[in-house]
């Protein structure tokens, strides 16, 4: 899809519903509110991540390593370092991506790319703790029994997500200031676990994080 292309209203609407919108039960409201408040105070995040994909279509678990930067309100950087190099920078509604297989920078508008829009909005919502946005199609259950509180999201009946996703589990750090892991379990048995390490909160993000094309390439 080309950048700036007019948005297909049909497809936009089709993919719109991929956006999971969660809702919390009353019993968990206080913990959810506490966690949301904690995340709301986070305006900038830089973190490294390890993404482990255990998918039935792959012979073995794939491990993806990379870096993530989120700057409120609308900037997101996603860099994959292994097993291939891939960068994606979102600024507002403009998305740029580069990968080493093509060596090219591709620019597109989120408005014209419903799939990306859904994915990015979801990532934004999770990484910035926008629970109010995530609380329409999912039921949320908080578990604070361990030192690392978790919120388990299960799709509501009738929602589109119910056909695909079994549950999404967010595990918070001990200080409850940010997410430690994000686990997505699908109905097919596939699971994706993202673990965030070396997270730096509310510090200035280096300009290089917003450069889509790596230096020296």
């Amino acid at each position, binding site marked *: 899809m080309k950048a700036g292309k007019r948005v297909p209203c049909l497809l936009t609407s089709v993919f719109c519903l991929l956006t999971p919108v969660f809702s919390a039960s009353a019993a968990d409201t206080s913990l959810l509110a506490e966690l949301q408040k904690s995340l709301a105070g986070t305006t900038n995040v830089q973190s490294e991540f390890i993404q482990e994909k255990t998918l*039935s279509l*792959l012979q073995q678990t794939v491990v993806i390593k990379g870096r993530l930067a989120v700057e409120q309100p609308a900037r997101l950087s996603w860099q994959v370092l292994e097993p291939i190099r891939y960068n994606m920078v979102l600024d507002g509604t403009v998305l740029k991506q580069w*990968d080493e297989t093509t060596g090219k920078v591709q620019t597109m508008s989120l408005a014209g790319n419903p799939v990306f829009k859904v994915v990015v909005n979801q990532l934004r919502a999770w990484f910035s703790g926008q629970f109010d946005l995530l609380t329409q199609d999912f039921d949320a259950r908080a578990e604070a029994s361990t030192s690392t509180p978790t919120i388990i999201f299960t799709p509501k009946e*009738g929602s589109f997500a119910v056909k695909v996703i079994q549950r999404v589990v967010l595990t918070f750090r001990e200080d409850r200031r940010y997410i430690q892991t994000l686990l997505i379990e699908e109905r097919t048995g596939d699971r994706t676990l993202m673990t965030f390490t070396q997270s730096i909160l509310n510090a200035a993000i280096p300009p290089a994080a917003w450069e889509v094309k790596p230096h020296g390439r």
Partner: protein
Amino acid sequence: MDGSVFLRIFSRLERRRNLVIGLLLTLLALAGLSLVRIRFDNTLDLMLPTDSPAQRMMAFLRTANFSNKIVISLEAKDTADARGTLMEASDKLAASLQSPLISKVISGFSAPDLMADAGFFLRYAPQILTANDLALMDSEMNSGGISGVVQRLYYQLLKPEGMFMARAIRSDPLAINQMILGRLEKLSTSMGYDVTMEGGHFISRDGRHTMLLLETTVPLTDASGARKVLSFLKEQLSRLPVGITGSLVCGHTHVVSNEDTIQRDLGVVLSLASVAFIILYIGFFRDKRALLIFLVPALAAVVALAITALFFPRLSYFVIAFGPVIAGIADDYGIAVYVAIRHGSNRAESVRHIVSPVTAGALTTTAIFFAFFFSRIPGYYQLAWFCILSLLLTVVLALYVLPLFLKPGKTPEEHDASPSFTPPRQSRLLLAVFAVLFILATVLATRVKFDSDITRLDGTAPDILKAEDDFRAVWGTGERKEAILAVMGNGYEEVREKTDAIYKDAVAAVGATQFVSLASVWPSGKTRAERARAWTEFWRDGREVKLRGLLAEQGAACGFATNAFEPFFEHLYDGTILTDEPVSNQVLVTLKDRFIQTPNGRYQTLSFFPDTPEVGVALGRVVKDRTDAFIVSRTAMGAILSDAFTGEVVRTSLLAGLLIIVTAWLFIRSIPLTLIALSPAFSSVVGLLAIMGLMGRPLTVANLISGIVVFGLSIDFGMHILHACRHPQGLHARLAVTFAAITTVMGAAVLLFARHPALYSIGLTLTIGVALGYIAAMWLVPVLYGVFGGRK
């Protein structure tokens, strides 16, 4: 004619003066009453040649589904939580639009339903994919091709979007769904609006606007209904919450605005013309009875309009625009009668002398409009009826009724036989000067272009046009840049099959990216059955086994499991089972609503393509020999209208010219003198075109009609001056022609106060043209007569 018939009739009328007055008042009252029922058509449909491609295009646009669409754009002034506020306001507004005038309201789509409905097309991909698509898949079915496929899939899994794509990749490794979705996307983008879907609502890119799409039961031809529906919608928009404003975009605003503009213009023009004529007659003749000169053509026009309306249910507003012009032409007869009676001692005798020349003048002028009867343009036909009836009624009223109300002068009539025109001494030099000017004017005239963009004759108010510009700035261009290929048929399946055939040819001619048709995602039942068979044969012919092997082999190299793509093969033939067309599928219903129409009980499919000359020409070749398909293109419309009008105008002008020349010759009986009489006509038309060229104004439909009238009136002037040259009548003849020209120009010039571009254009052409015709007649005819006519 010795006038004895006139004298006999007039003496009877004189004896029954009160009866004549009574009959006249009754006629006027009846005509006045019937005027209330007259319906004016403010569209340009009546100005298009009957059965021409131009008329077919306009009729198509008028009856097309999108002509009953109304778009409401809501804007949030405050950017904070604009979306939420807009969505709430949109929902409330949609709920309030319960009216028999509104048949459908769409504020967005229910996303979950839409997703499921779009999935329908993916399930039935085997019935949708073409032989080319299968060939494309076949070309990838080798080690190299499948290696590329699995690598692409693997990389996709590593990217952010891969978080949700495992299931899709397993069931669709060849990205067949993308092919279908791409086509669905093209269909939805052909709506041309720059829109995103949020929370089931259409939201603009700037996030500050939402849109509602309405359908009304009121056709565009129903001006009164359009007024009602707009009034209803404006009332609902006035109830929007504070901070939210709404604007309407639809053809109905143009209909109502045009009608308002024309009504306002007619009020202004007719009032101005009345005042100007009254001042002129009273000021010039210093007699209250001179007002009767004005009343004669006015009365005739009212009666002529009423009679014309009896024949035509919808009258073009061009007809009424010619009212003051005709009054300016026809008042000459009343003036002649008035002057004759004032300068005579017996009104019957005074009028008897002028019966013949006045009747001849009226007949010559009538000949101009008589030629319009031979036109295929209904508006010209109406104009002919109205103008001829007006002129003939005026001449009858002026000769037989007006004298009943005038008092004769005290002094007996004296005939002034002194020369009306003295040929100048340097006639040949003046002719040379004229020839140079004529050549220069001809050069300038050739630069004038015909502008067939009929939207330039749209009298819509500027605030509505600005609202539409604002709308386009927010939502994009809509359908303005799309051309349409329409295919007609008597049955649903029949028209779909025809469309499939044309789609195939069209794609071959311009490529699939340039041609948007429902046939690309949901062809006819017959085509779907054929494609389903082709799909089954394609895979059963060893390709299923081959692809399994290739995916297993090449997939393993990228780490894919042996059974990674099993879901694809499990459901490989599911989509070949034919199904009845779903009636509740929101996506299909929406697409059919846009791409299939049922005008006049027939079926019609629409396909869209970029409105560029290249694509238009290529697709024109595709439908060239078909009677069941045609192209509607704004770009092509220009050329079609140009051809239609050029042909019509040339024919009508030639006929008008011929009729006038024959009429002129019948009175003059000399070819050289007839040519002299015609010289002002050619001069005025060439001069008019030259001035339009200098003003940078193109020729429009409106100019063409008035151009013919200018041609005819200029011949009238030429004949009168020539007559005065041949039969000296003193300075009275010059004065008479000058007065006639002034009143005609005055009748035309009041149209310059019109806001409607068509009326203004008519006024401008007639004012300049008639003025030039007068100048040419006064200057050129005596000179030509001096040089060539004297010998005769």
